[in-house]
């Protein structure tokens, strides 16, 4: 029995004691193959999953290394069955390869013929595979490359995609590093992505994912299609690209509901791609409009299902996924793995925070005890109505007041789900409101005023969940959310995590009505951040800011 920092559980979780002297070594050693599940203050939990082990194989690690690492750092004897399972699982990756045969084109090549036989017998591969060339090779219809990879992952025999990519149309892009430089982890992320071909880079909100995208574009120097969640985000990408690269406004096109420009670098929204008319996607032609050399998926955890299907047809092009969290509320992580690619880079939020690249944040849950009258209304309400009732409790207005007063002079965002509540709050706080109905022009004007500091407080609906760049915002107050969405909570925290000029700490408040479903949902929403090491402090609304 060694005195290692790691405890290997038979259910394939790894417990890492963070205060152990060798914890850092152990974390670096297991990071390539184990997925961080929870990172609270004392013991971090990692999990060995097939996807994680295959990610490691894709990155060039073998089973022996994994087993050695576990044995080296484990405090107790490692369960034998687990080691066997690790070896078996990792051995499954790459027995099949997708290669480009000079004579036949795209071919599924088997290093293990029995596997090929098994896969060919499966009903799921029907129609994806073409004629058999010889014992070990089968033709693959180029259009089915993505589907086949999806199916092979589901069958447990993930293929190594060695078929390479089309070069795409060349287009010079350079990073304009004048007065700023890529951060080391951004460089690593770009290297990791480019070395691997395609894949996902996981970085916290505010850690500069756009720059990783720009860096990848510069490395690729090809025409690029960027898929983003909404128009505001599209504009911010464009501004950032103009500022950080050699690209000029004329080279960048926007393909959205309002504009349909196709230029060497085109930024399109998921929404426009997934518009469906008469059973067809009229804007799909965008994908073939140019010979794209790189496709960037912003916020890959939000990728809508139709985009998955389209992505399946884009397997010959390099794909970069960017996200703050691979947690998908719909559990389609395996599709991200097979269609976008394996995870190529990941850094715990707290690590980046400790390096000073994102602002340190303090999370507080404010528990509001409802007055008896409201409690009675809540108790009598229809179950469907309860969350709305609890989340929009009138008492929250006063709490927001007090919080805002506690942070005088700090740019504050008040974020909520329900428009009625937001209207009331905006009135109450005498602050402008941005919702889905606000015009683009008005939004941009308000964001600009907020950045300049002329508008100290903004009330925003969920339109602001993603990709709005408000670097100076340092206080966020969440009054209601979409039920128990973990990634929404993370995104909202991300709004205030850009490092501040004066090194201020960011404050994130979630106001929760005590003893209601609001509290239950809040607990669920907080799990991701708690797992990332953000401990919520709980405060009773009555105890908040004695000054107020």
């Amino acid at each position: 029995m060694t005195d290692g920092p790691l405890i290997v559980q038979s259910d394939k979780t790894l417990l890492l004691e963070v205060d152990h002297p060798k914890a850092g070594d152990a974390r670096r050693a297991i990071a390539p193959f184990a997925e961080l599940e929870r990172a609270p203050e004392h013991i971090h939990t990692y999990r060995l999953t097939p996807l994680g082990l295959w990610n490691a194989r894709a990155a060039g690690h073998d089973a022996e290394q994994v087993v050695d690492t576990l044995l080296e750092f484990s405090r107790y004897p490692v369960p034998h069955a687990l080691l066997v399972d690790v070896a078996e699982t990792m051995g499954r990756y790459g027995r099949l390869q997708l290669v480009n045969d000079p004579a036949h084109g795209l071919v599924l090549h088997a290093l293990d013929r029995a596997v090929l036989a098994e896969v060919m017998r499966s009903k799921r591969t029907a129609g994806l595979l073409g004629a058999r060339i010889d014992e070990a090779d089968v033709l693959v219809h180029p259009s089915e490359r993505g589907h086949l990879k999806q199916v092979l992952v589901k069958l447990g025999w993930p293929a190594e995609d060695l078929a390479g990519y089309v070069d795409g149309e060349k287009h010079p892009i350079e990073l304009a590093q004048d007065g700023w430089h890529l951060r080391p982890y951004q460089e690593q992320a770009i290297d990791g992505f480019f070395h691997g071909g395609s894949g996902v880079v996981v970085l916290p909100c505010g850690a500069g994912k756009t720059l990783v995208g720009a860096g990848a574009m510069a490395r690729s120097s090809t025409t690029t299609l960027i898929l983003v969640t909404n128009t505001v985000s599209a504009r911010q990408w464009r501004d950032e690209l103009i500022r950080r690269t050699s690209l000029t406004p004329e080279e960048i096109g926007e393909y959205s509901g309002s504009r349909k420009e196709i230029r060497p670098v085109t930024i399109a929204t998921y929404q426009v791609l997934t518009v469906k008319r008469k059973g067809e996607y009229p804007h799909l032609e965008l994908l073939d409009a140019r010979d794209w050399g790189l496709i960037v998926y912003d916020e890959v955890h939000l990728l809508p299902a139709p985009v998955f299907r389209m992505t399946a047809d884009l397997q010959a092009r390099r794909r970069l996924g960017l996200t703050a969290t691979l947690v998908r509320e719909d559990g389609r992580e395996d599709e991200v793995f097979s269609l976008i690619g394996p995870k190529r880079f990941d850094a715990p939020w707290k690590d980046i925070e400790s390096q000073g690249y994102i602002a340190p944040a303090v999370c507080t849950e404010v528990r509001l005890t409802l007055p008896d009258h409201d409690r009675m209304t809540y108790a009598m309400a229809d179950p469907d109505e309860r969350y709305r009732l609890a989340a929009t409790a009138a008492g929250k207005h006063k709490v927001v007041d007090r919080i805002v007063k506690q942070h005088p002079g700090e740019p504050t965002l008040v974020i909520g789900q329900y428009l009625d509540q937001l209207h009331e709050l905006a009135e109450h706080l005498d602050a402008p409101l941005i919702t889905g109905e606000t015009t683009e022009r008005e939004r941009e004007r308000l964001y600009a005023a907020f950045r300049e500091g002329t508008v100290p407080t903004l009330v925003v609906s969920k339109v602001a969940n993603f990709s709005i760049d408000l670097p100076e915002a340092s206080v966020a107050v969440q009054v209601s959310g979409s039920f128990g969405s973990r990634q929404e909570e993370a995104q909202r925290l991300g709004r205030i995590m850009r490092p501040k000029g004066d090194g201020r700490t960011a404050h994130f408040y979630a106001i929760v009505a005590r003893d209601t479903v609001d509290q239950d949902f809040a607990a669920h929403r907080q799990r991701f951040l708690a797992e990332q090491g953000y401990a919520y402090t709980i405060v009773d609304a009555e105890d908040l800011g004695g000054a107020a």
Partner: protein
Amino acid sequence: MAISDYLTALDDEHLVALLRRRPDLASPSPVTLASLAARATSRSSLERALASVDAAVLQAVEAVVALAPDGPPSRERVVAAITGPSAGDGGTGSSPAPTLALPAAPGDGGAAPLGAATDASFVGRAVDEAIGLALVWPDDEGLHAAPGLAEILGPYPAGLAPAPTETRLTAPAGTAPTGASPAATAPAGTTPSGAIASLAAGPAPVVVPGDLPADERAVLDALTWGPPVGLVPAAGNAALPVVGRLLDAGLLVRGGARQVVLPRAVALALRDGRTHRAAARPPAPDWPVRRPDVVAAESASAAERLVRLVVRLVTAWGEEPPSALRAGGLGVRDLRALAHALDIEEAEAAFVVELASTAGLVADDGEERPSFAPTEDADAWLRRDLPARWAHLAAGWLTSERTPWLVGTRDERGSAHGALEPDLHRRWVPRVRAAVLDVLATAPAGAAPPLDDVLAVLRWRTPRNVPPSGAVTALLREAELLGVTGAGALSPAGRASPIDPSAAADALAASLPTPVDEVLLQGDLTGIVPGRPGDRLAALLDRTAVVESRGGALTVRFTPESVRAALDAGATADELLAELTAVARSGVPQPLRYLVRDTARRHGVLRAGVALAYLRADDAALLAGLPDDPRLAGLGLRLLAPTVLVAAVPPVELVTALRGRGLAPVMEGPDGLVVHAPAVRRRTRPRPQREEQPPDDEARLTALVARLRRAEAEASRDGAHEGGPSTVGGSGAGAASGRWGAGQEGLGRATGRGPGRSTGASRPVAARTGHAADAARGSEAPAGSPGPSSAARPAPDAPSGTADPAAALLLLREAAAERSLVWVDVVGGRGVLERRLLRPVSVDGGRLRAIDPAREAELVVAVHRIAGAERAS
């Protein structure tokens, strides 16, 4: 010399050794040596001895039997016959050495010289062993098999055909042997080639041509190593002429209409004089070896897990014992429920159940409706520490004759075996288990033999008695589940178990990691014990949190439900936090403190209790005095709120007592309205089947009238069907007895007088009987109807019947006991009320089983379809 002489001549030492090796010879004690010899050669004793010998000894015995037709073989001859001629330095006892080996002799062509030499000494020892067991006995002529052995070994010992019974005659040259009887020995002259292999495998030399065509060779090869019998190919088959040529050459003989036999002498020649292709050797173990700490850790965690499962089983069944099936055993559904509750596979649940039963922790309680419940021993077991509990389970397992792995499989009748079923006993299980464990125990420490290798060893050890591979697989799995093995290798505790349970407990205790008494509580409401929690810590976490993962460490999560459960069990928030603080290395994080406090704040806000009546008043002062009033002391009055009292007596008693005290209470109904009941008067039911109804219930009376009208309408319709109102003005008494029951003659007669006058006539009678309900019926029912119709078919809802379900059931049960007839109103399939005269047989499980005398049929009616019942007089 005979075997009895041999045994008689044995010295005491050898005789004792024999008796030790074959214990069945010594018990019961034989009277004479002759009877000992008789017993030693009995079929059952020989079978038993053969079942225990390993493959090498069996070969030696087979060789002695197989060589016997050529005269008793010498020890050297036997050794040579098994190891091959190259090792046969001593194998030439009575026969000439082989002159030439067949170049294409099948088999492995003999072992390498060195191997063959060691083989020779090895086989020699096997022969000695056979002699020691008296399976083979020596005399001056050579070795003899014990009488009876040949029969046991079958017609083809070592795959050789029996020797011909006739003397060994050489057939005349050129004559083809046609029959099966004489040995077919082909003279050398018939073979065209000069390459000749001849071997004196007996007095008759056999010559097999060395350059047989490949097809003939193939046929011989197929039969050489036995069994020596082949089927004659069908006509038209290409092999037929080949066999024909071999028959002509005398290399095969006919063995019946459709069979050919390879003669013993030919086979021996082809085999190079050997009886066995190769000497049997014990399998050389080349097994993976596990590190001792891995074995100890895995077996300890398995042992801990299994004990935990059994504890949970005992707890679960203590709360809700599953019922035993009539045939004994546990129902499939109960097993599935258990597997679900323990979060394990059903197969494993079956093992756990059987293990708990074998260890005497659960048993059939022997009640009238038997169920499986924890025994009293279980309580003692639960009090012991983990190693002792485990050792108890392991000891039970070692001697268990149960076969849990058969649960879920089907027997020959096609029904699935259930856990704890009596049928799952197999006497051989302990023996096979011991054999399997012995394979592990005799392997090098830490060796984890794969299943196939275990089977190979078992095949070598007792080739005449190889355990079924399914059982071996299952037993190995059980051993792993139990922690007798860890990572496939025998654990220290497993090694000690068969010898001494307390040593096993000690060994397990040594394997268990040192208990940890600290937990790391974290802000995400999880807690982690970085090792095996000590008993107190384990109990605390068990009470307050749910387990997320087990292994080297224990991870738990605190949830509102888990904390509430702890509070339910009697802890307070402060106690809970104090207990957690005491064990938390880094303190109790704020979110957990909030969770506990918030849960405690809500806990117990709603309170439930028992009371039989309440008393409320707006005058708090009035109520406040009552609980202390000595005259009301017997009522169990308790103040719940300033304006609410509860009592431990029913409302009637409460009201009476309060009135006696001079107060003026009124009773209120469920709707809070005052019920104006006159002074409470006790009533007893005149007859159990009667409806007891408050006389003044207006709504009920209205409904009753409506029902009566419906019934009358139906009766009149029936009457019309039967040809009109035959009883009007007629046999009044008869009608009365049928219609109204024995106690109501007066009323019956009144109605019997016919429609027009019935109302007036019945009223006084009803009044006389004093029965309000009857009066109502009497006054209303016939009024709007053409009149009663038939004595044999009284209308539904006649007063002596009942529509009250409980009373109806009681009536039916009584009728079933008395075997009497009852009118039963049954709601038919289409919702129509049907009245039938039935003789109830039983009322059980929501069904009435009854005989319909009119139709001479038995019928079963769901109780909920019975609208009413009435005694038929």
